């Protein structure tokens, strides 16, 4: 993937939509949404101090844990309210239980994509018996941000998943 070209095309698309908005009095999106895939790498400094940092996910093989981060940036002059991010766990991946974070958000999950509940309250059917769903069985994550997103501010959502 050539990120340079993608940026360029993305920029063109935004400019185009903004121009068309002015011409036809349509509003542009107030939120710019980005999603990234990273892995956590342990670094050792020259003094032998260990630290962890997130780097773009490069060689991803079964068993690799990927950190997905979604940011919602308010690019309008008005606040955005009731900001909700929905993110299905990608195919071929299993959610790392308790890894979803998002400052200022109520986080709920779903197994079927229709009904959402906080962690620990979902159930699944197995061989005709209902049992609590395990954290790695959650298939969708929802972040409902409690406060308005001020102009220029960003809301932030993150979760980890392991490649099957």
């Amino acid at each position: 993937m050539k990120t340079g070209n993608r940026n360029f095309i993305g920029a063109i698309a935004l400019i185009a939509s903004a121009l068309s908005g002015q011409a036809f009095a349509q509003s542009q999106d107030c939120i710019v949404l980005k999603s990234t895939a990273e892995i956590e790498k342990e670094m050792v400094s020259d003094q032998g101090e260990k630290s962890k940092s997130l780097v773009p996910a490069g060689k991803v093989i079964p068993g690799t844990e990927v950190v997905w981060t979604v940011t919602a940036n308010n690019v309008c002059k008005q606040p955005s309210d009731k900001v909700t991010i929905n993110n299905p766990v990608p195919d071929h991946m299993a959610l790392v239980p308790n890894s979803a974070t998002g400052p200022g958000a109520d986080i709920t999950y779903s197994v079927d994509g229709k009904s959402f509940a906080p962690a620990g309250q979902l159930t699944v059917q197995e061989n005709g018996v209902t049992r609590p769903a395990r954290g790695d069985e959650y298939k969708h994550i929802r972040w409902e941000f409690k406060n308005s997103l001020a102009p220029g501010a960003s809301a932030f959502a993150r979760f980890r998943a392991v490649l099957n």
Partner: protein
Amino acid sequence: MFSISRQMRRVGLAVVAVGSIGLSGQAFAQGTPSGDTVTNTATVNYTVASVVQTPVTAVNAFTVDTVVKLNVTGGTNLNVTPGQSTGVFGMFTLTNTSNIASNFNLAGTNRPQPAEDQFDIGALDVRFDVNNNGIYEPGTDTAVTSTAGLASGASRQFFIVGTIPLAATNTQVAAVRLTATAINPATSAAWVNDAGVDVQGGIAQIVVATASAFAQDTFTVATATLGVSKTSTVISDNLVPPSPNPKAIPGATMEYAIVIANTGSQSATLQSISDPLPAATTFQPLQYSSGTRDVSIQVGAAPATFCIAEAGGSDTNADGCFRTGATLSVGAPAVTTVAASSTVTVRFRVLIN
């Protein structure tokens, strides 16, 4: 990795959750295949001044890279006999645990003495279990040095076959090893770890987690080991009255006991025991079983059995015992086998001339 922001123009209700939900796909036993794309789709819903806005979606993806892994299992032991040349085989299972199909080179080797075992098998060969039945069939199972096109998660069975040296002795062990090395079908050479810059998408990069693996089987010699000893005891000097501690004087009766001991771990089949009587002695018949039998045979701890050792060189009553001149012969059905860790004792008496 930056996302592309796309507008989803929907009239009416805002869409809550869109994207790669789907039904759960195939579960891949050995992990998601190399080259598959994994896509994340995030959607944001929001209002501005209480007006519901068009949802915005962000998508980004990565390519699943190649991981090369394999394992070989073995660990079987086969009991063999010295000089055995058929049915000497140890089984191994090779599994491709990569997330991509691979070829493998195969090498079978004897382990070194004395560090790891006591002997080498001869004519060592690696054979492919063509019909996957776990039994080495010489006509069917071909000799191989490699195997190709083993799918991700799939296994194949192989044998190491050979012969046991005649000089191998009871309890000696030969260990053999099967080593498999993963070979890239595209290059016909070992897979090479991609040392280049990490790339998130595009062609799958190669991670070699395990380049080669091995397992070992053993062959243990389990055979009979026979030893023979002969003792003599003076039964009576036949004087009147007989002496309390009789000596081996002319006219005395001597009992000979031939003990055949099997110190091995397998029973031995005896064909016959022959004993030429010493010169200056005469065979004494009817010394056993209340004067009705010539020879006593004791197998292990069982009660003694008896036979008649006819003179004249032929076993006319077919009880297993006869004499040819001065030689006593004892065989089946009087004596057939000596069990492992057991003895057979043959007793007979002579008169000292």
